[in-house]
């Protein structure tokens, strides 16, 4: 009896330690990656890095300004395309009934979310790059936009579903039509959740590399307009990292650090603003 007791205690303690250790390792990877990036890239990070164009190999200095701006441009384009579609699709799913069509839409959105990003790149290549006969920001923006849609649909739908029926009924009882109720009461009530979803959506897509490889390609210079190849942080990091030049390796670390910092900051800001909301 005594022995069984000790064995049980030992197993309990062992499992507690094991599961705790695994949790720590899971969390630890983030800090490990961050730490590695800071250690290797921190020294290359400078104001010049953030504001200068890349220089030819061998020449000292240079930076990734065009990649930072390029990523911004691509995300802007992707948002302009993906967010309205995703948002309105989410409104449809949350507010208009029916059984089979919404189910199909939701299921398909989840499937689209699971499509490997490189295939979305190929898709954008086929429908934008080939007809245009060159790589462009437009193609890259489209690819990223397609990736944003399913996430926006689901997060909008979930945010709208948290709005209680009571509020909708209150508006209807005052003589508002269904659409007016949605536009003036339901969506404003859910705006924090919707905005959170959108920011996380953008942050998620900001680091995608595969869909840009043969749509936006890359560019060592500024790319004005929308129909030329454009630099982006993830692709620039990739290009520099596989190159044989040490200087470029150092810059790849710095670029990675910038990318991760932007994504983390977006996530943290969003989480903080949500938790700061007063409970209703």
């Amino acid at each position: 009896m005594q022995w069984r007791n000790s064995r049980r205690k030992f197993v309990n303690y062992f499992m507690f330690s094991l599961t705790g250790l695994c949790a720590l390792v899971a969390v630890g990877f983030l800090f490990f990656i961050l730490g590695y990036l800071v250690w290797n890239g921190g020294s290359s990070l400078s104001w010049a890095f953030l504001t200068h164009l890349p220089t030819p190999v061998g020449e000292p200095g240079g930076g990734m300004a065009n990649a930072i701006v390029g990523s911004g441009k691509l995300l802007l384009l992707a948002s302009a395309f993906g967010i309205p579609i995703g948002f309105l699709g989410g409104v449809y799913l949350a507010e208009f009934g029916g059984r089979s069509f919404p189910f199909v839409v939701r299921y398909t959105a989840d499937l689209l979310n699971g499509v490997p990003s490189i295939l979305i790149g190929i898709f954008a290549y086929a429908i934008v790059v080939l007809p245009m006969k060159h790589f462009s920001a437009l193609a890259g923006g489209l690819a990223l936009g397609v990736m944003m849609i399913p996430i926006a649909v689901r997060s909008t739908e979930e945010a709208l579903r948290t709005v209680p029926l009571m509020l909708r009924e209150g508006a209807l009882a005052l003589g508002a039509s269904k659409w007016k109720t949605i536009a003036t009461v339901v969506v404003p009530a859910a705006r924090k959740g919707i905005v959170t979803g959108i920011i996380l959506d953008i942050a998620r897509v900001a680091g995608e590399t595969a869909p840009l490889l043969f749509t936006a390609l890359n560019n060592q210079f500024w790319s004005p307009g929308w129909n030329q190849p454009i630099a982006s942080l993830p692709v620039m990091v990739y290009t520099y990292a596989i190159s044989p030049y040490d200087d470029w390796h150092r810059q790849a670390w710095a670029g990675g650090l910038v990318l991760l910092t932007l994504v983390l900051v977006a996530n943290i800001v969003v989480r903080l603003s949500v938790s700061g909301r007063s409970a209703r």
Partner: protein
Amino acid sequence: MAADDVKMRVSGLDFYYGPKQSLFQISLQVPTNRITAVIGPSGCGKSTFLRTLNRMYETVPHARAEGEILLDNEDLLTMDAVALRRRVGMVFQRPNPFPKSIFDNIAYGLRVNGTHSGAALQEKVEKSLRRAALWDEVKDQLHKSAYALSVGQQQRLCIARALAVDPEVLLLDEPCSALDPIATAKIEELLYSLQDQCTLIIVTHNMQQAARVADFTGFFLLGKLIEYNKTEIIFKTPAKKETEDYITGRFG
């Protein structure tokens, strides 16, 4: 009741949720500018009945009403739902102010119905808040969130919001069930003062409340209207045994 004293005439109303019938041949006449109470045990159909009067059941799929309900001789069941709800307002069991300022809550119905001028809105908002006996308490904080008010104040806000569009009929679905006795008393006083300008129909599970405020009372049981008469008669000399059993508390 004389013909022109009747605001709403319900005849042979049947109500179904899908295949299941929940109201059976309800017929009654609601007097103009009086308070009519609907009482009965839980699940007897009184809320369902109330919600047919402004067609709120239309948000539920497979819900349908058959029969006739006349609002001033117009068929309520076939008229435009939006136009109907501007004439027949509703206050719900739990206060449901919008997450907007006090001012915007009251102005909501007005804006939805086409009033946009700042001066007109200002005037109507004040008028509604006065009618709901809330003006003095909130006049300095119109731009604060409605959620900053106490529950009792929120319910009066919802009443003010419903009154802002000048409805001819106001439906109240157990408006005091979420409130303490003092807030309840304030609202009963308020309802009493409103009946000159508005026909009120109130569902309540509180018999004493019905006895206090209503001129006419209807007793519902299992989807049927058992008895409908002047409140005094219902409570003092009910004609049906079921009514008497309910009034005397033999079942709840």
